[in-house]
């Protein structure tokens, strides 16, 4: 039987492709939520694999906070050009201008939470019935209990205490009008798996993940990138450092890692040696112990 061995990455890949195809088969209008981070890049790569030689039969959508790294947006546009895929963009700024959300102010101001409104509006406007996301169960404890097929009621809300049991590889995507599903094909992947897979398959990622010089400042144990919209305290001094992103979100909540890693091998070694979780550098999770759960219940990614 030795010849029938698949390594862990191939098994995870097969599982994720299966789930992505289930979404295309079970839903009428799926969409793949794309952020330009490595998880959504791997998601899109797997979706291309799932339907090759046909095109991915659903669009991508980016909820743009307006506070993204320029490199992320350039990478996104390049990738769409290269693959011929379509990426819809919805702007948090529009939700602000329409008065649906109010911009936070002060030093820790972020548009991270505001994204939820823009996302749910877009899902309703475009009548999406399934939104594929790159969330992983190892990321955060509230995610550890999320299903692959995660039901959302007509308000886009998640009810974590009342989830459908998920058995074998049988995924129940049945729903009523106006409800939708969030689907997480990478649920069983860890941060390390994602990096190893990127390495194994030679998946292209933004340069932000490799070491580069950047103007940064230090706040509560996290190095944050400087940008015109970043409100700094008087005591916070901007310095230039060799840094890279371990995760890519919007600038206001993405912690930079001091690092000289300039290859995937280096990054994997760094991930293997690190003793802090990926989201340890995410400002958005530090707000409270149940920060992620609360955001997810409201309809966050």
């Amino acid at each position, binding site marked *: 039987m030795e010849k029938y061995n698949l390594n862990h990455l191939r098994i995870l890949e097969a*599982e994720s492709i299966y789930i992505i195809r289930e979404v295309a088969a079970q839903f009428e209008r799926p969409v793949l939520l794309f952020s330009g981070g490595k998880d959504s890049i791997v998601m899109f790569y797997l979706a291309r694999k799932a339907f090759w030689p046909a095109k991915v039969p659903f669009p991508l959508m980016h909820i743009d906070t307006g506070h993204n790294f320029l490199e992320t947006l350039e990478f996104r546009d390049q990738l769409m050009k290269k693959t011929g895929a379509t990426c819809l963009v919805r702007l948090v700024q529009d939700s602000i201008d329409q008065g649906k959300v109010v911009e936070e102010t002060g030093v820790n101001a972020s548009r991270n939470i505001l994204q939820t409104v823009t996302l749910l509006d877009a899902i309703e406007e475009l009548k999406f019935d399934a939104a594929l996301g790159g969330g992983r169960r190892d990321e955060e404890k509230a995610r*550890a*209990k999320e299903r692959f097929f995660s039901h959302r009621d007509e308000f886009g809300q998640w009810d974590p205490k009342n989830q459908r049991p*998920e058995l*074998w*590889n049988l995924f129940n995507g*049945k729903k009523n009008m106006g409800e939708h599903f969030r689907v997480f094909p990478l649920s069983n992947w860890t941060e390390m798996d994602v990096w190893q897979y990127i390495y194994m398959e030679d998946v292209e990622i933004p340069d932000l993940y490799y070491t580069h010089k950047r103007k940064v400042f230090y706040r509560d144990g996290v190095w944050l990138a400087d940008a015109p919209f970043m409100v700094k305290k008087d005591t916070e001094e901007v310095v230039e450092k060799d840094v890279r992103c371990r995760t890519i979100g919007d600038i206001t909540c993405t912690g930079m890692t001091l690092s000289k890693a300039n290859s995937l091998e280096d990054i994997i070694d760094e991930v293997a040696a690190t003793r802090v979780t990926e989201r340890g550098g995410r400002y958005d999770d530090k707000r409270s*112990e149940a920060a992620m759960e609360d955001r997810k219940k409201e309809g966050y990614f």
Partner: protein
Amino acid sequence: MTETKDFQRGYLNMELLRFTTAGSVDDGKSTLIGRLLYDSKAIFEDQMEAIERASEQKGDEHVNLALLTDGLRAEREQGITIDVAYRYFATPKRKFIIADTPGHVQYTRNMVTGASTANVAIILVDARNGVLEQTIRHGYIASLLRIPHAIVCVNKMDLVGYSEKVFLDIQKKFKELSMKLDIQDFRFIPISALKGDNVVERSENMDWYDGPTLMYLLENIYISSDLNYVDGRFPVQYVVRPQAEKFHDYRGYAGRIASGTFEPGDRVAVLPSGFTSTIKSVDTMKKSLEQAFAPQSVVLTLEDDIDISRGDMIVKENKMPEISQDIEMMVCWLSETPMVMNGKYSLKHTTSDAKCIIKDLPFKININTLEKNYEDKSLSLNEIGRIRIRTTKPLYYDPYRRNRVTGSIILIDEATNNTVGAGMIV
């Protein structure tokens, strides 16, 4: 170049093992999982700090490792685990997925869920209490769900003076009771999850035990033969038809191989039509394969133009599945609304959707005593029984004990869309 190869050896040649943990409330399950995660460095500093902080706030004496897995606000507030939690760790040999199922509320439903994808079940027994009713229940569910390997961890050995006799007595009792169960591979390990004996490190307190540690077993237990490589089964998930000049006549069938192997030149039959053909190619984006096997996701093309759609199954001609509209299965009821006799339900089986009527409930099982009850015709939450259903269209299936993919079914309540039953075809 050598450097790259070393690198690959270190990181990319890992196997994947999924296991589930079963134990009663105070058997030390969370401590055991915490220990495995902690000793394999899967707990990070910020996670550890967070649970230390939370334990302190709650006034716990020890760092409460259960807080690692109890992620929901309600769980932490009430100090209970509500739902199956998935946890991950890796050693250089294997990546592990733990389905951690809570010990009390909704117990059976959760354990069945966690067990449905597991290669290994870890069953915890408190050395002070010995084999209890619930131990039988855990063994029965592992056997019903056809988990190929079960490891019985006799925990809290430190509290019985690391006594060999206690361990052997429990082993003997368990073996007697498990005669009725259908698990091929049972192992027993005396451990102390709290003190770390025989979990990752060999115990110095039990020199009478010369078997492997739990971690050694998890890393080395032979799982490659767990899948069925004999019966070629390919449930069609999606039809791939590129609207592009380059692939003008391409028509491929996307799916995940449920069992067996497929390669170009293989004679196949397509169900339900019964048409036969030959496999032309086994495609993936990077390359076409000489052979594909379970559980790979691939695209098959055939030599002949046959009408095939989602829900159909491509099978090897030499070994056909069973085909019927009258199915008998063991079912675990998952819903607070009891099963309705002669009621109609939707069902999912491989990639196929159908409806069915519950025709009969020949018996149900008392999962604490394993006795059969032929009188009671009701089935409620967390109960397991044998049912007969009539489906709206024929299903192509294998008995669950032969094939976990083509032998499993979920029942769905048509009014609420909830998944209410987990069925294993007899």
